[in-house]
């Protein structure tokens, strides 16, 4: 008998033969259902949930009041003014849309790549996507000034015989973000139907039975249904993959199609997409770490999941860093006076502080994930994810504001100053986001229960050890070791 080395059978081992199963401490399906839904089944949510909801809801109410103030008074309550006409609202829009990218990336692209670990985080990453896109959609909606005319964004036949301009990137945005929201919502809901049926079947009160029953549309787990359902899920993943890449590309066209130095670059679409995935994963991490703590999901969202996310953050953060340096290189290499000036001005001009916050948060911070110690430390990864969130907001601030503030003509330069309404509206949007998220983890299946069961070794109908886990069942000693590891 060999003695167990402490580096063996570790959850984050690079050698898959020495890894325990994806789902920890569960061998049967029933206990998985119970364990995931224990937060939803509890008669009362924990005090910390009420506390978080109270804060989020107050912030959301503040957002509502500020939007009301904006509508009654006008866009003058914001700092947007000549020459920086796109201030905070567009920065916030791009920030939130970017965050909304991780959900569909996890649910679609990682699904196509057969990354089974995605099943533990896809549900709430998708939920996060939807809430982030709601926050994102709010900003252009109120930025139009006369919000009662926001319907002009859509091609609706009207008495003025007036149609939108289909050759404008701003209209492409309406279609891209609208489609993205719709498809993400459908993907999320379709994935949730079997789990809603699970909640319906274990509901103890009439209200719950009816509410979950209605949304479960009478799902009964028929394999004939599952057959079409799985096909639809695969097709949606295949459709959402180009979609998720297109959305931030189209958002970047808002800038790239303009002729402003610093905006008019061909690198923007891939650069924006990498940044979006980067910020999205950071936000998933920011939410996953407290959620697994609060909701007792450590058996499902394990160290290995968090480590995988760290690796993705390292990769996309480096991509973003490469894009920053490439922008600079091209600005110099093109020999364009305005382009070179814009970039030097970004780094060393009046907004230099914002530029260096961006670089240190987005490029320097993720480099810590080269070290396994950092990838396995909750404190470090949570702190790093917060830094990335901050850095990605500043990236959008740098792009939007510096280019507009100092364009071709020095006589038309100006400095952008946000007002208190700008700042508080931005914080208020976090309230909106968190309120939705907290309601989601309390009332909806927070993990994809059916999908998680399907990746357990016991789910293999052939049962002759296709899975390495069956050949090396986790012993108590190994489990204890892996536990220590966390």
């Amino acid at each position, binding site marked *: 008998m060999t003695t167990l080395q402490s580096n063996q059978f570790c959850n984050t081992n690079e050698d898959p033969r020495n890894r325990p199963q994806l789902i920890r401490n569960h061998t049967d*399906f029933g206990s998985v259902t119970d364990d995931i839904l224990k937060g939803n089944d509890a008669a009362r949510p924990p005090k910390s949930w009420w506390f978080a909801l109270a804060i989020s809801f107050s912030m959301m109410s503040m957002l509502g009041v500020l939007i009301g103030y904006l509508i009654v008074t006008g866009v003058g309550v914001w700092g947007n003014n000549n020459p920086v006409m796109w201030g905070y609202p567009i920065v916030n829009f791009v920030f939130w849309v970017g965050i909304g990218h991780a959900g569909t990336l996890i649910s679609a692209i990682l699904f196509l790549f057969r990354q089974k670990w995605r099943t533990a985080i896809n549900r709430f990453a998708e939920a996060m996507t939807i809430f982030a896109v709601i926050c994102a959609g709010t900003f252009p909606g109120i930025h139009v000034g006369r919000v009662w005319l926001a319907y002009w964004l859509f091609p609706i036949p009207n008495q003025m015989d007036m149609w939108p301009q289909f050759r404008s990137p701003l209209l492409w945005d309406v279609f891209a973000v609208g489609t993205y929201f719709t498809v993400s919502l*459908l993907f999320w809901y379709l994935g949730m139907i079997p789990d809603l049926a699970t909640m319906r079947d274990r509901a103890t009160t009439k209200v719950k039975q009816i509410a979950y029953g209605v949304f479960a*549309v009478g*799902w009964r787990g028929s*394999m*004939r249904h*599952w057959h*079409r359902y799985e096909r639809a899920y695969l*097709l949606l993943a295949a459709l959402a993959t180009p979609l998720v890449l297109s959305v931030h590309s189209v958002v970047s066209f808002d800038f790239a199609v303009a002729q402003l130095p610093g905006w008019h670059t061909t690198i923007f679409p891939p650069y924006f997409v990498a940044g979006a995935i980067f910020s999205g994963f950071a936000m998933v991490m920011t939410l996953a770490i407290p959620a697994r703590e609060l909701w007792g999901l450590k058996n499902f969202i394990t160290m290995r999941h968090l480590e995988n996310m760290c690796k993705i953050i390292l990769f996309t953060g480096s991509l973003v860093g490469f894009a920053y340096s490439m922008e600079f290189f091209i600005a110099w290499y093109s020999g364009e006076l305005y382009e070179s000036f814009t970039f030097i001005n970004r780094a060393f001009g009046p907004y230099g502080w914002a530029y260096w916050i961006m670089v240190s948060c987005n490029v320097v911070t993720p480099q810590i994930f080269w070290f396994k110690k950092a990838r396995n430390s909750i404190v470090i990864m949570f702190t790093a994810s917060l830094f990335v969130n901050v850095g990605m907001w500043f990236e959008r601030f740098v792009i939007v504001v510096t280019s507009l503030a100092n364009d071709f003509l020095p006589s038309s330069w100006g400095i952008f100053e946000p007002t208190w309404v700008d700042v508080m509206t931005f914080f208020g949007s976090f309230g909106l986001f968190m309120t939705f998220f907290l309601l989601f983890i309390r009332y909806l299946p927070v993990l994809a229960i059916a999908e998680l069961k399907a990746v357990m070794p016991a789910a*293999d109908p052939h049962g002759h050890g296709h899975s390495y886990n069956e050949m090396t069942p986790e012993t108590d000693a190994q489990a204890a070791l892996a536990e220590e590891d966390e």
Partner: protein
Amino acid sequence: MSQDTPKKLYGLAAEFTTTPGIYHAAEKVNEAGYKWFDCLVPFPVHGLDRAMGVKMTILPILVFCGGVAGFLAACVLQIFTNSLEVDLWALVPVVGYQFDVSGKPLLGAAAFVPVAFEMTVLFSALTAVFGTLFLNKLPMFYHPTLKHPALARATDDRFYLVIEACDPKFSKAEVEAFLSTLEPESIIELDA
């Protein structure tokens, strides 16, 4: 009242606790020639649909058609609203809302690509989701298998194979005997 009117039988359900159990049972039921049977499972058991003899769904074809429809709709929408300039029967002028921006062509195909792409994806995705629900005949809030309290575990941790009474080969005694050869945990009678 339920005692004087004898209940109609919907079918017989065999309960299994493992995935190999339901998989091999489904294979045998399919081989025995039953057509009206189904498996109620908490998650898609890999290969079970093939073991049951379920034919490939036509959903991908529907989704493709949905995508084509979305693409055409986007082209028509953009050309009709922004670029059109024809005289219907040489009399009625039909003119789109033409934006003249630095003399750029009204029918700029490249500029129409993003919206055409998005609408293709949108229509395909809508077809995929609503097509699945339609082909699965959902929403269906009433079903005999939803009525029996034991079968609630089909969404939790148990696997059920249901042979329906409407199957031409169905006779209660025979099916009961056949199901018990599959070594189920229990056999449950379902009322219609």
